[in-house]
C-alpha cells in the first residue's frame, strides 16, 4: 500500500490507520436485524408445526403409506427406542436429535427436539400463532426493504454483479477457499459470490417461502391457484420445507464468513453502518492518525 502523501520524516513508526466506508444505510440495517428475528421465529415455530405431522409428500393430497420424508421413532431389534429419518426409501438412525430426543430428561418421540421448536413443548396452536404473526412481520419488512432497495438503486448496486466481477468469478471462489478477502477499493462492493448468493436468497428463496406458505392456505387457494404452481398443496409443503433447509444452510455459511472475514468490522457495519475497507501501517506524522 502506498504511504500518505504527507510523509515528512525519515523515521518510520508504524501505526494503525483505517479507511472507512459508510456501507449500510439505516433502512437496510433495520431490515437485516428484523429479518434475523423473523426468520428465527418462523424457523422454530415452523418446526413446531412440522412436528404435528412429521411427514412430507408430493402431489395435491397426502400418500400416507408412501411419504417422501418422514421423521419418526420405532424400536430396535432389542426393543430400545430409536429416532429415524426416512427419506425416499432410505432410513437413517437419528436418535437423540430427530425422531427421538430428550424432553425434561425423558426420551420423547418427537420429530424435532424441544430446543429447536417454539414453543419448546408440543403445542401446535401456539406454534401457528407465532408463525403467522411473524410471517406478517417478515412480509412487511421484506416489502419495505424491496421498495427502498429498488427506489434507491441499493438493490441493483448490492446484488447485481458488475461485468468485471463475472469475469473474476474463478478468482472469487479461490479467495473464499483460501479465506483471503479483498481490501481497499475492491472491498467497497460485495464480491461476486456474495452478490449472487444474496440475489438468490432475496429474489428466489425468500419469495418461494412466502408463495409455498400461502399455497397451504385454503382461503388463499380459493383466490389464487397457488398450489398448482408447485404441483399441489403437499408438494408446496415439501418445497416450503426444502427451501427452509436451504435458508438454514445459507445462514450457517453467512455467519461463518462473517466470523472469518472480520467479525468486529462486519458486526459494526451492520449495526452502525461503518465498515473499514482498509487498514494500513503508515509512517508517523502522516496526517491525522486516529
Amino acid at each position, binding site marked *: 500500500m502506498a504511504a*500518505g*502523501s504527507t510523509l515528512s520524516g525519515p523515521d518510520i513508526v508504524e501505526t494503525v490507520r*483505517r*479507511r*472507512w*466506508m459508510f456501507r449500510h444505510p439505516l433502512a437496510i440495517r433495520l431490515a437485516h436485524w428484523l429479518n434475523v428475528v423473523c426468520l428465527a*421465529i418462523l424457523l422454530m415455530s415452523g418446526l413446531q*408445526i*412440522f412436528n*404435528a*405431522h412429521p*411427514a412430507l*409428500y408430493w402431489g*395435491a*393430497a*397426502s400418500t*400416507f403409506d408412501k411419504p417422501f420424508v418422514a421423521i*419418526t*421413532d420405532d424400536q430396535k431389534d432389542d426393543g430400545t427406542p430409536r429416532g429415524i429419518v426416512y427419506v425416499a426409501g432410505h432410513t437413517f438412525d437419528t436418535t437423540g436429535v430427530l425422531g427421538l430426543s430428550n*424432553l425434561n430428561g*425423558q426420551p*420423547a*418421540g*418427537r420429530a424435532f427436539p424441544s*430446543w429447536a421448536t*417454539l*414453543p419448546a*413443548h*408440543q*403445542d*401446535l*396452536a*401456539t406454534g401457528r*400463532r*407465532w408463525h*403467522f*404473526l411473524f*410471517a*406478517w412481520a417478515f412480509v412487511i419488512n421484506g416489502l419495505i426493504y424491496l421498495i427502498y432497495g429498488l427506489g434507491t438503486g441499493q438493490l441493483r448496486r448490492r446484488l447485481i454483479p458488475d461485468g468485471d466481477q463475472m469475469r473474476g468469478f474463478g478468482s472469487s471462489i479461490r479467495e473464499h477457499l483460501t479465506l483471503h478477502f479483498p481490501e481497499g477499493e475492491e472491498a467497497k462492493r460485495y464480491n461476486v459470490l456474495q452478490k449472487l448468493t444474496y440475489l438468490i436468497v432475496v429474489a428466489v428463496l425468500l419469495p418461494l417461502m412466502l408463495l409455498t406458505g400461502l399455497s*397451504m*392456505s*385454503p*382461503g*388463499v*387457494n*380459493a*383466490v389464487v*391457484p397457488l*398450489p398448482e404452481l408447485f404441483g399441489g*398443496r*403437499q408438494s408446496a*409443503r415439501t418445497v416450503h420445507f426444502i427451501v427452509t433447509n436451504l435458508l438454514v444452510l445459507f445462514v450457517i455459511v453467512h455467519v461463518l464468513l462473517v466470523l472469518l472475514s472480520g467479525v*468486529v468490522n462486519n458486526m459494526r457495519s451492520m449495526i*452502525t453502518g*461503518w465498515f473499514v475497507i482498509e487498514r*494500513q501501517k*503508515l509512517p508517523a506524522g*502522516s496526517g*491525522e492518525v*486516529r
Partner: protein
Amino acid sequence: MIEGPMKPRLSIPKPHRRGFLTAAAGLFGVSALGGCDRWAASPAGQRTLKLGEDANLFVQRLLLTPASLAKEFPDSEISPWFKPNGTIEPPDKTYKALAAKNFEGFRLRVDGLVERPQDLSLADLRALPARTQTTRHDCVEGWSAIGKWTGVPLSEVLQRAGLKPQARYVVFHCADTMEYATGGGDETEEKTTANPGMESRPEGAESQASDSQAAGAEAPAQGGDDEGDEAQGTPVRYYESIDLTDAFHPQTILAYDLNGKALPVSNGAPLRLRVERQLGYKQAKYVMRIEVTESLNGIGDGKGGYWEDRGYEWYAGI
C-alpha cells in the same frame, strides 16, 4: 492515496464496550428462547399473537368473494382412503342408538335466531337441492386428503328456517363427547397441548398432545353415559361455528355422502359440515343441531369451537 479518513460518526468501539455488547447479545439470545414461551402464555402475549389471525381474516375477507370457490378436483384424484380424524366413533349412548338404526330417528334441529325452527330427517335433507363437490381437505397438522362430498347447501336449510335480523353466527353442535369437564384448574394445561388431528405419535411423553382427541374418544367409552356421571363430570362435546359469509357460500354444505356412498361413522355420519375454504377442524362431524346466534359468548368457552377454546384460530382460512 489515503483520501482522508472517512470518519464515522461513532468512534471505534472500545474493547470493553464490545465485550459488553457481545455478552448482552448472548444473554438476550438465551433468555429470548425461554422468555418467548413465558411471554406467549401471558395475556399481553396472547393478545399480540392473535394479531396475526386478525390480519389473516381481514385480508382474506378482502380477497375472497362469494364467487371464490375452493378448487374442485376430478374424481380421478380422490384419495383412496379419506383419513378420518378427530373422533372416529362417538361413545355417546344417544348417538350409538341412532347409528344402530341407520339414523332413521335422526332429526337435525335448526333453532336459535330463526323464524321457523326445523327438525329435518335425513330423508328431508336428501329431498332438498343437493350439491356434489370433490375437494381437498386440509388438516391443521399439514396433511391433505381429497374426497367427493354430496350434501345440501347450508344456505338452503337456513333460508327454510329464515334468519332473524340479529343473526350473525351459525353454531354446529355435535354428538361426540370429547372429554368430561371436571371443573379442575389443571384442565388448562391439557387444553393448550391438544391437537385437532388424530394422526398421533403412539408413544412418548408428549403423545398426549395429539392423542387427546383420540383419548377424548376413549375416555368416555369406559362409562359411555350420555349425560355424564358424578365421577366423570359434564360431557364436553365437539362444536364449531362460522359466520354468515361462510354460511351462505355455495360450497358450504351439510354432507351426507362421501365418494358416492352414505357418510361412514368414522367420517361424521349422518351429517357433517363442509366449509371448503377453511381447515379440517372447522368441518364439524356428527352435526346434531344448528343454532343461529348473535354472538359466540356463552357457548363452550366462548371462542367459537372446541379447538378454538383450546387456542386454535376461529378463522381457519390459513
